[in-house]
């Protein structure tokens, strides 16, 4: 007798893929499993928040040591209109990913796929604007962080430090947006395979949580870097 086969749960192949999920046997029920996964995700997000807290700490140190220099440098090197457009687009992407989850909750497969696609579009807009309108011109003109700074027309003695903080904070955030795009791409693939439904959308929820943290970080970065 093969005990492994005897212990395999019976999967009803007549059910759609999203209804076939069986929680691991150490859980009381699927709800407990989903809630535990979500708590685990929140604990990971706590580490992400602390990662970016380091950049906000560097920012605060700059403003403490060189009062008055930040606003002069940021209005000289950065365009708040670009930052503003990116902010609105990221907020929209947060909304669309909530709608993708709603699609799973209400068993509308088209809604999951459409909204994940819209989220990707917003993320792509963010990255393209950032790379083409912010990063590339800066690289060409030598407006680079720290020791790489070669711009001929600096406006203050601490411009290279200002740019260090700008580059590291926005580039790390941009990397998180890019990784988010890859993960949302995976979710689109799973959604196409009917993996998500009212009884099983945990990984979609957790991807949504990650995406919202990326949005929240930008909500703080935008005014601090571009506006004040």
């Amino acid at each position, binding site marked *: *007798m093969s005990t492994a086969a005897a212990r395999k*749960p*019976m999967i009803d192949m007549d059910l759609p893929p999203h209804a076939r999920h069986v929680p691991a046997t150490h859980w009381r029920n699927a709800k407990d499993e989903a809630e535990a996964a979500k708590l685990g995700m929140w604990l990971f997000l706590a580490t992400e928040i602390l990662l970016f807290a380091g950049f906000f*700490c560097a920012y605060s140190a700059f403003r403490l040591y060189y009062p008055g220099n930040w606003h002069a440098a940021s209005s000289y090197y950065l365009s708040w209109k670009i930052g503003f457009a990116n902010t*609105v687009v990221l907020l929209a992407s947060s909304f669309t990913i909530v709608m993708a989850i*709603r699609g799973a909750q209400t068993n509308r497969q088209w809604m999951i796929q459409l909204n994940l696609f819209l989220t990707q579009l917003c993320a792509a807009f963010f990255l393209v604007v950032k790379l083409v309108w912010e990063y590339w011109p800066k690289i060409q003109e030598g407006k680079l962080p720290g020791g790489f700074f070669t711009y001929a027309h600096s406006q203050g003695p601490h411009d290279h430090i200002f740019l260090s903080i700008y580059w590291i904070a926005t580039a790390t955030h941009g990397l998180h947006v890019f990784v988010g795009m890859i993960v949302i791409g995976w979710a689109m693939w799973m959604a196409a395979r009917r993996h998500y439904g009212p009884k099983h959308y945990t990984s979609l929820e957790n991807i*949504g949580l990650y995406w919202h943290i990326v949005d929240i970080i930008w909500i703080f970065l935008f*005014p601090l870097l571009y506006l004040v």
Partner: protein
Amino acid sequence: MTHDPLQDSIDPSETLSVHEAHEDHHHVSPFWPMLWVFVVLVVLTFLTVWTSRMHEIVIGNTTIEFGTTLHILVAMAIAVVKAGLVAAYFMHLKYDKPMNTVVVGATIFAVTLFIGLTLGDLDARRFAGMKDMQYHILGGDVHFDAAGNRVKGKGIVQTAKDNAHAESSSPAAQSHSQPATGDAKPAEAPGAKPGGH
């Protein structure tokens, strides 16, 4: 035939207890309220930009000047509200078990300690270059040569010792000074050397 539990297969529907069979749908995110949250978020973004462009508010006879600090405070207050809306509604914290919110609260506490204590430390170090602050930090042991460079002094410990001796040799302290150095605990150490002078 004895019952062999290893031969049992697990029926998925039996992994839910009877009471919880209907509970696997938790709160479904509603469309219109979420859309409203999005609209409010965009409005708050406009508000952030608008207040950052403002330089003064005139109310009747009073003019409030928007300095940098006020700009930062207003911008951060709006950002906190926006983040709170995203967390409560989009991230579902309002409808989840409280433990998730506790994790967020603990994280905010950790970040506050991180940035707050670091800035406090940095703020104290700012004065390392300022001559008059050094006087207070180093306990009065600060000397400068003619060129204005700091000359190494005798240090805090030696300064404290010298101050203690100076106190003990002053006339006002004369009656208390002798036992302090010489007759310490005579009852306990009869054989001990008298010490001091």
